[in-house]
């Protein structure tokens, strides 16, 4: 229905191309800098820390905004909702310029067939930041278009028409949005008018309730896992149980005999059982016999050995100081090592897709962060045109970067074609853990030279890690050559303490299993190493960790200036003290990620030989908070997820088998581990919105570690933080 209506509406568009926001694309950008790669490489990597990739998509308002006969507006979002609150933020931006009350706007995912396709992905905490101006301009343009139609219908000049609270009025008469669009098939798309000034915002900056709240509280069937077609079959795909191994000698004989099995399908790249029910499909798939031929034997030790500073491709990406060893003069060199583990996404909705193939066309309902890439993959695999593939994004039961590549859409589509009926194909939980695209493990060496008077003469961060962006679906394929350093893994790795001579070096290591985007990418590990070390330096030089940080950031860099404000605000709000009181200590840490600085204080005690986090205070500057309540929700979520990742989670590897493969065994923070108090204050250092959903993941781990150091005298140097870990540094 909606789809038809939309098509009708767009049919009358005077086909003017409105593509001013359509950037050249990452591939071209990287290709462009290839020629001047050496001088630009560092600039590019540092830029990756702070810039927002621009919106790449269509700017025809009719593709985004649909006026319904009842005067409600449907916003067809090319960005997906995975919990981050994007739908609500986008609705606020659009409602603001459309001059309508929030209740009048609904948001749904744009299908690829609608033509509203995002050129990139939903990720990097960039949706609101990237659409801040484009979407308001789209809505403002739509408003002008509606004004013109209203004027026509009222037979008055447009400048006499007013729009207030969702109603057009002129000459004593009024028209609703529905009345204005009735019968209209032909639209003139004018240039975007000037945007509303900040002072007149009625929705932006207000804690509007999530637009998806009621559906999520009543258990509505909104997720990919809930999607169905009538007459649908269920598939279970055989997936690798071991890394770096080929599956061989597949014997499906017994599986074929299992109850409910409709067909065992062998495609070039996979084998799957298709059955009448999920249980029957899974049970039969478990009866498939197969061997795996490992290319070589892998254990965790091998991976840790590979991921060690000195191994892999080296890139110096911050060079504002010498290597610490080369700093002349007397002094002492302090050196510490840190490690972070392999991390799993563990999003609760497993990956999967529901596909329906018919007569050379296919429709796929799926939780994905990359509808455009998924469409291209499905078209290629089926050998059909992209216009004959419709990707229908659903709400995501968690994204966290796990759905920045969703090739299982291909599996479902091929299976539907093979059996001639719609097919639903999902991972089970074990497959989900065994086939994750993990957060790569990392190794860090932090070094500083101290003068005999205890002044820091230079600071150095060297680290090694695996792919994050490289080899991902978003990688145009040449970035490894152009950049050498993977800017996903490097995220958060640059030192923000630019008042000190500083230098950062990255070693890119190839790993025998898939690693990729995990919420905040390299930040979690890098902030842990850097902020733990800064804390240790403050202790070593008898300085307050807050003032030491403030003194170490210059006033030359605008992000640094904002970071200082955040650091001060956080310390003040928390009543930061560098002493243990009643068995509780405070730990301080800060970071700048994607241009948004965040500082946190964790209040920690040791209970029954375990670390207990009681309270976390956070100060965060993400620029304009389009929805302050949802920004706070993101900060709270990042803190609790960060506690989980930095205190509990780790994957093991034995004889090419990754484990654990189930919740519980993969230890995660639960209700009991989450702080009872989280106090978030928001600062606004710039007059536009910056990234929100990832930066607050940086400081929490080191803040806890820094508190533990004060309680026990022990410096924990490995994630997950564990009081009994062997590799601690015990500085005198």
């Amino acid at each position, binding site marked *: 229905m909606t789809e038809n209506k939309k098509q009708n509406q767009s049919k009358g568009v005077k086909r003017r191309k409105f593509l001013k926001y359509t950037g050249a694309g990452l591939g071209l950008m990287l290709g462009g800098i290839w020629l001047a790669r050496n001088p630009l490489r560092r600039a590019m990597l540092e830029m990756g820390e702070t810039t927002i990739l621009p919106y790449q998509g269509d700017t025809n308002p009719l593709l985004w905004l649909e006026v319904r006969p009842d005067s409600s507006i449907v916003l067809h979002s090319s960005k997906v909702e995975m919990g981050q609150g994007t739908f609500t933020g986008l609705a606020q931006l659009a409602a603001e310029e459309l001059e309508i009350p929030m209740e009048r706007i609904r948001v749904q995912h744009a299908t690829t067939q609608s033509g509203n396709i995002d050129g990139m992905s939903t990720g990097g905490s960039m949706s609101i930041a990237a659409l801040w101006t484009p979407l308001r301009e789209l809505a403002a343009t739509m408003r002008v278009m509606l004004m013109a139609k209203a004027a026509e219908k009222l037979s008055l000049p447009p400048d006499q028409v007013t729009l207030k609270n969702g109603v057009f009025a002129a000459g004593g008469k009024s028209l609703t949005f529905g009345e204005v669009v009735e019968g209209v098939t032909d639209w003139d798309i004018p240039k975007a008018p000037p945007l509303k000034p900040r002072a007149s915002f009625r929705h932006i900056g207000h804690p509007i309730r999530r637009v998806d709240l009621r559906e999520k509280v009543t258990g509505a069937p909104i997720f990919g896992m809930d999607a169905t077609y009538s007459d649908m079959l269920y598939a279970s795909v055989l997936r690798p149980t071991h890394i770096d191994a080929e599956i061989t000698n597949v014997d499906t004989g017994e599986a074929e005999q299992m109850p409910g099995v409709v067909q065992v399908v062998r495609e070039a790249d996979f084998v799957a059982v298709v059955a009448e029910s999920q249980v029957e499909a899974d049970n039969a798939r478990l009866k498939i016999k197969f061997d795996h031929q490992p290319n070589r034997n892998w254990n965790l030790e091998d991976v840790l050995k590979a991921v060690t500073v000195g191994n892999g491709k080296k890139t110096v990406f911050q060079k504002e100081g010498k290597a610490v060893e080369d700093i002349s003069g007397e002094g002492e060199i302090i050196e510490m090592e840190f490690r972070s583990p392999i991390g799993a996404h563990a999003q*609760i909705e*497993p990956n999967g897709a529901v596909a329906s193939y018919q007569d050379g066309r296919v429709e796929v309902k799926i939780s994905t962060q990359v509808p455009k890439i998924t469409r291209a993959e499905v078209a290629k695999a089926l050998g059909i045109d992209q216009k004959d593939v419709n990707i229908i994004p659903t709400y995501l039961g968690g994204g966290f970067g796990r759905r920045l590549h969703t090739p299982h859409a291909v599996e479902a589509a091929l299976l539907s074609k093979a059996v001639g009926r719609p097919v639903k194909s999902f991972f089970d939980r074990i497959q989900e853990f065994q086939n994750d695209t993990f957060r790569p493990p990392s190794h860090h060496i932090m070094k500083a030279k101290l003068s005999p008077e205890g002044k820091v003469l230079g600071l150095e961060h060297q680290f090694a890690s695996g792919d994050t962006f490289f080899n991902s679906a978003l990688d145009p394929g040449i970035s490894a050559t152009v950049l050498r350093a993977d800017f996903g893994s490097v995220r958060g790795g640059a030192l923000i303490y630019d008042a000190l001579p500083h230098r950062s070096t990255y070693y890119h290591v190839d790993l025998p299993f898939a690693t990729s985007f995990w919420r905040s990418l390299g930040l979690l590990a890098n902030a842990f190493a850097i902020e733990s070390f800064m804390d240790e330096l403050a202790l070593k030089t008898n300085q307050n960790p807050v003032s030491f940080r403030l003194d170490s950031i210059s006033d030359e860099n605008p992000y640094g200036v904002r970071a200082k404000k955040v650091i001060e605000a956080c310390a003040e709000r928390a009543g930061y003290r560098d002493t243990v009181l009643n068995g509780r200590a405070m730990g301080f840490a800060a970071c700048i990620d994607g241009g948004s600085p965040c500082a946190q204080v964790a209040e920690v005690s040791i209970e029954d030989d375990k670390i207990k986090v009681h309270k976390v205070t956070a100060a965060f500057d993400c620029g304009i908070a389009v929805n302050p309540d949802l920004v706070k929700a993101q900060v709270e979520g990042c803190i609790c997820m960060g506690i989980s990742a930095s205190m509990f989670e780790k994957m093991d590897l034995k004889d090419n088998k990754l484990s654990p493969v189930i919740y519980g065994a993969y230890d995660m923070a639960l*209700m009991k581990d989450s702080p009872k108090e989280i106090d978030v204050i928001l600062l606004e250092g710039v007059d536009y919105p910056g990234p929100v959903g990832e930066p607050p993941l940086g400081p929490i781990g080191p803040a806890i570690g820094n508190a533990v150091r004060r309680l026990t005298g022990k410096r924990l140097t490995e994630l997950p933080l564990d009081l009994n870990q062997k590799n601690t540094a015990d500085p005198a």
Partner: protein
Amino acid sequence: MKINFTINGINKSVEADGDSPLLWVIRDGLDLKGTKFGCGKAACGACTIHVDGKQVRSCSFPVKYAEGKQITTIEGLSGSESDLHPVQQAWMEEVVPQCGYCQPGFMMATAALLAEIPNPTDEDIDNNIINVCRCATYYRMRKAIHRAAELHANAIAQQ
């Protein structure tokens, strides 16, 4: 085999292999999608429902044991479309959900907790609410559970 039970107040009779998990009968057989699959091994709580008022992880509950039982899922937690259950109301007030996928399981677990301990302490919450939320909405959930206890008490007082 044929299994008879009441779900959200409606009598149902289903034909299923008695050993198949109740979860899939609810989701695919009865098309009630609010009860989620997360792990299938009783390890995450996404599939939490009530069987005779007690919380049960339906992914690991063979359907044959549902014979003659009263089952409630998130769709039947509130008596009617318009009135939300106090737990759902509290969830709305505190704006708990992020991705939302785990939330029905948490709300069902909370409703069962409140039926047993109408005014839970933080410790009661820590000990009884042991589902997994990857978006880690625990901070707001705790607030919402306390708020739901209040709403629940008010509702009882009014009756």
